[in-house]
């Protein structure tokens, strides 16, 4: 039985502060880009309906809400993710070096049942900057790292120009969908207190 939970795919976006995580989400979902960088405030998660093989799914894309800045993302953020997107800035070497850290952090915190096959997608962002002249991480180097980690799909993107963002997220959605839920708890009897509980009788016993 396909539960409601199965129709909702949780995607989390990880990477150093300032690599463009929030911008990528905004470009994909809202087709908007703001040049004015401020450390993420106000970003929670965005949702988008995606169609795949005649079925509609809701992609729920979780921003780090700025909690990555001091590596203080709690375990709750990672729970139940169907796909993990790792983002770095092609113009900042350290953000690429840290991909390894973010991937390991994810595997520890989310502890997926099959870590070898858990779907990651890597995005090299900001390829538009300075016409590509300030770039320090080559595509070859990035692809080699992705290959060494079990052939992680790799996309080069520009959240600013909207370049390759749609294609990247299509791949993300597809891989999230392939990730089989492992827990018996994803039976349709979980309760979200925000839904369903409103039509309340006022008081009293059931008699």
């Amino acid at each position, binding site marked *: 039985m396909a539960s409601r939970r199965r129709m909702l795919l949780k995607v989390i976006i990880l990477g150093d502060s300032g690599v463009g995580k929030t911008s990528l989400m905004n470009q994909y979902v809202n087709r908007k880009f703001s040049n004015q960088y401020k450390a993420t405030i106000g970003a929670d998660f*965005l949702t988008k309906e995606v169609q795949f093989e005649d079925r509609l799914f809701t992609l729920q894309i979780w921003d780090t809400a700025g909690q990555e800045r001091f590596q203080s993302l709690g*375990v709750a953020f990672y729970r139940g993710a169907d796909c993990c997107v790792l983002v770095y800035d092609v113009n900042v070497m350290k953000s690429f070096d840290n991909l390894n850290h973010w991937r390991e952090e994810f595997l520890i915190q989310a502890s997926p049942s099959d870590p070898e096959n858990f779907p990651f997608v890597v995005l090299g962002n900001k390829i538009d900057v300075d016409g590509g002249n300030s770039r320090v991480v080559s595509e070859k180097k990035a692809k080699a790292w992705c290959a060494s980690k079990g052939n992680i799909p790799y996309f080069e993107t520009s959240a600013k120009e909207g370049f390759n963002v749609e294609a990247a997220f299509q791949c993300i959605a597809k891989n999230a969908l392939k990730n089989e839920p492992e827990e018996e708890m994803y039976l349709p009897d979980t309760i979200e207190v925000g839904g369903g509980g409103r039509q309340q009788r006022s008081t009293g*016993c059931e008699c």
Partner: protein
Amino acid sequence: MSESQDLSYPPIDPVNFDLIIVGTGLSESIIAAAASAAGKTILHLDPNSFYGSHFASLSFLHLTAYLTSPSPLPAAVTTTDSEDVVVDLLHQPLCSDAEITSYDEYSFLCENSRKFNIDLGGPRALFSADKTIDLLLKSGAAQYLEFKGIDECFVYEANEGLANVPDSRGAIFRDKKLSLKEKNQLMRFFKLVQQHLDDTQEEKISKEDMEIPFVSFLEKMKLPPKIKSILLYAIAMLDYDQDSNEVCKDLLKTKDGINCLAQYSSSVGRFPNAPGALLYPIYGEGELPQAFCRRAAVKGCIYVLRMPVVSLLMDKVTGLYKGVRLASGQDLYSHQLILDPSFTIPSPLSLSPRDFPSERLQLLSQRDIKGIVARGICITRSSIKPGVSNCSVVYPPRSLYPEQMTSIKSLQIGSNLAVCPEGTFILYFSAMCKNADEGKNLLKAAMNALLTLPVSGNTISSVQSDSEDTKPIVLWSALYIQKLIMSKFELISSTSTPDGNLNYNDLLDAAEKLFGQMYPNEEFFPKATSPEDPTDEDDNGVTLDS
């Protein structure tokens, strides 16, 4: 990348805040979310590598380590000339007297350590219709959480074992342990309460009766002891023996008793797929503080885990609070400070300058300890009630032995709530007590009534049989004692510890009160969601509803 590199944070920027909060327990996290929603700039710190402080849910090995060797504060960084008086903080663990016993399958528990999310402050659950649910909705924290219903609520009866709590008309009707007479008495009483609560009905409980002790009112209604006990301890969830004037610290008036009944019965069936009155969060109670912290982060609160605060910075002349010094050596300033209850200030102050007005600071070293609660955790391979995964049990006073003056609360949670590996169960116990010995005896009696705690040396596997009467065998157990400290609003405010209740109502009230004292002109989570929240823009709440 080396471990040390991982942890070398950049300096925190900015250095001035409206509020600095130390500790990410539920109360601190609620205030962080509320103050962020009110537009305050906040820095939220925690010395631990995890969220939740005393409300955390931990892995098996993490919990063991936490209970046996609480991490001390790092030595204060003595830096040179400071304009301020530097007062070093003391960290006093809230949990003590930990007694951990491993009976069987220790290697299995270790190998599956991360599949456990064991609550430090258990047993704890939510009533479907209580104010915690309202706060989760109002604050937006609900969107990060999922719950499941607790399948059954039991009351333990001396010599009879577990009986269902008859909490609705249907439950009374179905009950197999109540006599027909008892069923009628209970039905009549429920009807009376319902009429009282119904505004269109004339018939009310008299004003005088509303002010007398609930226990006297129940006697006046001629309810038999068994029914009385269920109403007082399994539905109103009282701690102390209501029949004993000497020991009773929480004598309940009829009006409050009626409110408890109303909350309980409006909880039953509030959510279509929750069978009873209680809910429990998937992955454990540690998800609740994290949900509030994420709410705060979305509104701009800065989070730094693994960052102890070692000292307070006090103004030389006025003696007022100015800021904190972090373990990293960085000094940060704020208008107000909230410390989690495990921090105190040494008394008397050493090293303070001769004319430093330290009297107000001395107040902080005096903590308002309200009592102590004994907590227990057991891991088993089978359920205390065959076929039931998640259930609560209340042991009313004197149900276990004549000197038992407080009730004991218990909660069994199974693997379908993602807190333990498949085929295992976690049981939580708690009881208010006068001292550690009394508390542990209470919990041991409660455990022994429903579980088998093997005597070391016994071969366990041969004892097991499939008979229904077989008590589940405990693989591992822990007992510990926790102080109850009340929140206070002072020069430096502090939050309260987990209390002895099953639900969060009193803790929420305390957090809301503290918020109101700190920010008398701000609303505690204004109703309308702010329009600048980008998530509200173009989707239509798919995440909340289905």
